[in-house]
């Protein structure tokens, strides 16, 4: 019993340096006052060519609507492992979503982008509602969206 506990502690200690290479990033997504139910959002990282890298956050609980977050759905292959643990409720009209995620340092200032796909039931789908470069300078500067998103900001 004790042995197991000890080895778990050791494993934790070895894992820590790996975690240290990531940093918490606060993502703030302010929605417009549109007419419709809660919006489904996917916030994810792509390379400059738009190639999917990693899911940061998914809003909306019903997986059957995920296909409407089109680019993200295509990139992630709607693979459960891609969004497990980083999903929450849909975001109502005019509301803001504020989440903190861990982002690997290797993704910052390395030519990657954050994108937001949005969709609302009986409304339009907005792939790449927001596109913004993931850089240290860009942090804290709001980027306007072209669909349901009013503005998107990430803070490090």
């Amino acid at each position, binding site marked *: 019993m004790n042995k197991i506990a000890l080895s778990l502690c050791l494993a934790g200690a070895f894992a820590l340096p790996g975690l240290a290479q990531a940093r918490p990033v606060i993502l703030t997504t302010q929605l417009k006052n549109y007419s419709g139910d809660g919006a489904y959002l996917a916030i994810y990282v792509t390379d400059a060519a738009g190639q999917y890298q990693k899911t940061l956050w998914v809003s909306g609980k019903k997986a059957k609507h995920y*296909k409407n977050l089109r680019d993200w759905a295509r990139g992630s292959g709607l693979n459960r492992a891609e969004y497990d643990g980083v999903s929450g409720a849909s975001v109502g009209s005019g509301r803001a979503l504020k989440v903190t995620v861990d982002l690997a340092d290797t993704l910052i200032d390395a030519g990657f982008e954050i994108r937001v796909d949005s969709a609302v039931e*009986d*409304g339009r789908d907005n*792939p790449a509602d927001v596109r913004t470069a993931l850089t240290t300078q860009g942090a804290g500067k709001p980027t306007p969206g*072209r669909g349901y998103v009013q503005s998107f900001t990430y803070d490090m």
Partner: protein
Amino acid sequence: MLRRIHSLPALIATLLLVVAAISGAFLSANPAIERLGTSVPANGQISVAALAERVARHYPGAEQIQRSPSGTIIVYFSQDGGTGAERVDPLSGQGIGPYAPSPFTRWVKNLHRSFLADTPGRAVAGVSALIMLVLCLSGMALLVKRVGGWRQLMRPLRGNFSQRWHAELGRVAIFGLLLSALTGLYMSAATFGLVSDGAQTEPDFPGVATTGPVAPIGTLPALQAIDLNDLRELVYPSPGASEDFYSLRTAQGDGYVDQASGALLSWRAHDGVHKTYELIYQLHTGEGRWWLGLLLGLSALSVPLMAGTGVVMWWQRYRAMPRIADNSGAQSADTVILVGSESNSTWGFAKALHDALREAGQRVHTAPMNRLATQYRQAKHLFILTSTYADGDAPGSANQFLARLDRFSDSHRPRFAVLGFGDRQFPKFCQFAIDTQDALLARGWQQSLDLDTIDRQSTQEFARWGEAVGQLFGRKLNLAYTHKHPPTQALELISRSDYGTQVQAPTSILRFGSITPQNRVARFLRRIGFNGLPRFEAGDLVAIVPPGSPVPRFYSLASGSKDGFLEICVRKQPGGLCSGMLHGLQRGQRIDAFIQPNPNFRPASGKSSVILIGAGAGIGPLAGFIRNNTDKYPMYLYWGGRDPASDFLYEPELGGYLADRRLTELHAVFSRVKQGAYVQDRVLDNASQIRQLIEEGAQILVCGSRAMAASIMHALDGILSPIDLDVRTLKRQGRYREDVFGYA
């Protein structure tokens, strides 16, 4: 049992069902409204490619084209950095207005599917659909039972206002409600993953796009091959991304279309499960089937009315249920009292017995005979107090007793005593009490007291029986029963017409009115329809309490409260306390009365003919039915009196009814004239006409003496035998009703 399965969930879920139904009815109009504002091209007229080409002319920034199930084409586009959505004409591709789904409709939709409470609300909505299903099925079973079989289901219905409307609406709306409940339940189950929602995995994104110049959308072969009416959604590739594809959803399946070659890639056809779910979705929402939507909506509108009438019926039953204080449980009681009663009058006696036995230290359980348990573990004594219904039948609270008796356990049988209630004037006096006694003896039950009977609610006879019961317990039992009846209302005689004194059958038509003060308020109230009378219809009974007797006498009503007066037709009985009092009444004198509804004795709703048969004073309610026949359905009156010169009751009125066609034919016949005859003779004279009317669905209402009713039944059995029918069958179908009284 069935009734409880029906009413208990209904009472619990009434509010939810009404909300779901009203919101559903509102939403059901949408497919039809949408369809009205849409021109749908014929199949094969326009391809997706053709539409996309036209759209491209007007919307260079088109990103997505959707076709709603009702055929509305919606284009999503971006323009000058913003976005928009517009409805377009499928023929020209030109915009016809912005696409802005109504926020109110969206709100109603959320109310309908989740009561505005998200996931928990959706679960409640699913349960509501299940309850609706239970209500549909149990309601149908109840109605079938009530009308006497599936084949009788479309027959006209009887009953009081609520009963009639509840059943009438129910049988019309049942198909729509069943469909809504079943499909709703399936959709709810799909939401919670209990059944498949038909979702298929997305088609694989094609690997590599064809290199080459991007072709104009109208030339893409894959889009040319798809009819516009099969389109669900076409999403354009991201602008400038040459490696991207059009993604296409159609009624048959989903896939991608290459921008350069126009080839259909990664096609995934819909499977059976997907198509099933889509069909069920359509059947629930009416999307793409606007007429179905309207039908479902109309059915749903019946729900609030059914809920209202249902709650009223439940309340009426609840109120009518006698309440016994300090009732012990069936298995803990050492004495059990079972009651068979039609109009609840026997319950008063049961309560007196219950109280006396409790005072004697017994634990007493009192219940309707239909609640006979399968055993009584502690009980040593069983008392059965029962009246008899009509011609020796079981009264309402005992009609399942004999069937239940077979299921009673062989052990734990208390010793029993039966007490019958009835009226010696009727030929089958206390017949059901006798039947009950015989059934118990035949099954080997031990009797503690011989069968005893109570004539016309006699308190003396009841007290005497109480002495015998007391001896069983070795002590004196004080059975003090006082007649209790609903509160009475004083009524005033406003007019009378007298007939029949010359032929020894003094009969009077008495009209009573309410006693209202002669002031301005009262005059105003009368003018707007408040005549101060209790509510009643012709065929109901008025109970009149004569001075000097606590027992009310019942008379059939010849008018409805809407007529503004209460009318009865009364023959003076030799030595009759109440009829004597009534015949001595002068204008302005008063009586005390209350109403006893008799909803089974009145013409059924519907257009089928009505044959009214009566003799003597029995014409009263029949004349009332004719007076109210303002819709002029065919009514045939057969009536027998003694001498047209003396006792032709209602003669002037009947002439007027014939003239304005409220009455179709009048067959009056008299016995004390030359070649005199009785009403049954006249019925036999017209056998072929009556047979034909009954074949066409006519119903028969008989009112008069028991002897006359028996002759009529005999005559009709003879008339109906050639067409394999008899009065028994008609009675079971509810097409033959009697209102008979004791004297000959």
